[in-house]
């Protein structure tokens, strides 16, 4: 399983102390986690298939967009646990006798992809669509994390 931590996209100005903190964190995580967790996108080497995942954030929603070409809707599973969205499933290929694979670049088998969500979401209102090989999971933010205007009386 490859768990990719949420990272804010904006670049922070370089500072020497940050670098040290980062290095310390990395060293810590190196000892705490199995080795392959240190190479998030290289996860494919160990798990076979790590579909590309994009995450969007708006005022009301977190939206995950995952590239899953050639799946059946029934074979995709989404789950939400402890602020982590996990998309898993199995890609099957029906093979008939007498067939010979000339070239196999497409991954067949089980995959699992997890991502830590940046804010809390309302698990009961999560919805998903699958079209043209793209899975879109819409996760409405929990009420308490939505920005609110407070009137001064």
């Amino acid at each position: 399983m490859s768990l990719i931590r949420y990272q804010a996209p904006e670049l922070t100005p370089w500072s020497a102390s940050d670098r040290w903190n980062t290095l310390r964190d990395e060293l810590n995580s190196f000892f705490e986690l199995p080795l392959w967790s240190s190479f998030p996108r290289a996860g494919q080497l160990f798990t076979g298939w790590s579909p590309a995942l994009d995450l969007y954030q708006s005022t009301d929603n977190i939206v995950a967009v995952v590239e899953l070409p050639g799946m059946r809707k029934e074979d995709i599973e989404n789950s939400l646990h402890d602020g982590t969205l996990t998309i898993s499933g199995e890609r099957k290929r029906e093979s008939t006798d007498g067939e010979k694979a000339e070239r196999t670049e497409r991954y067949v088998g089980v995959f699992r992809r997890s991502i830590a969500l940046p804010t809390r979401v309302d698990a009961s209102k999560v919805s998903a669509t699958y079209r043209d090989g793209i899975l879109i999971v819409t996760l409405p933010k929990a009420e308490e994390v939505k920005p609110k205007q407070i009137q001064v009386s």
Partner: protein
Amino acid sequence: MNTLTRENRDADCAQTEQFIVPPASVIEGSDGYTLEVEMPGVNKDGLDISIENNELTIIGRRSLPKIEGTLIHHESRSESFRRTFELDPSIGADKISARIEQGLVTLTLPKAEHVKPRKITVS
């Protein structure tokens, strides 16, 4: 046997549109080949398949849904897909058929009649 799968990577370098190479699988059956190319985000309208000089080119342009909000984690690519194959002479080019389902292009390339194994009865 020389097969369909010979890939032509430097077919033309003069194009301005940026392409990425999608993963593909080729399966040989008794009647022909099945070619599967992964093109997530591409539908029927964005698919362009052509054969020229015995070269099969598959181009897929994505039509992605607009998503509200800011992108906070990005792994996908936005370039179009393109893949070129040289066709084996055994393939009947006029009988090639294609379909796209959930971003997976499947091409059926039947072998021409004259190359199918045939039993000759001794009289």
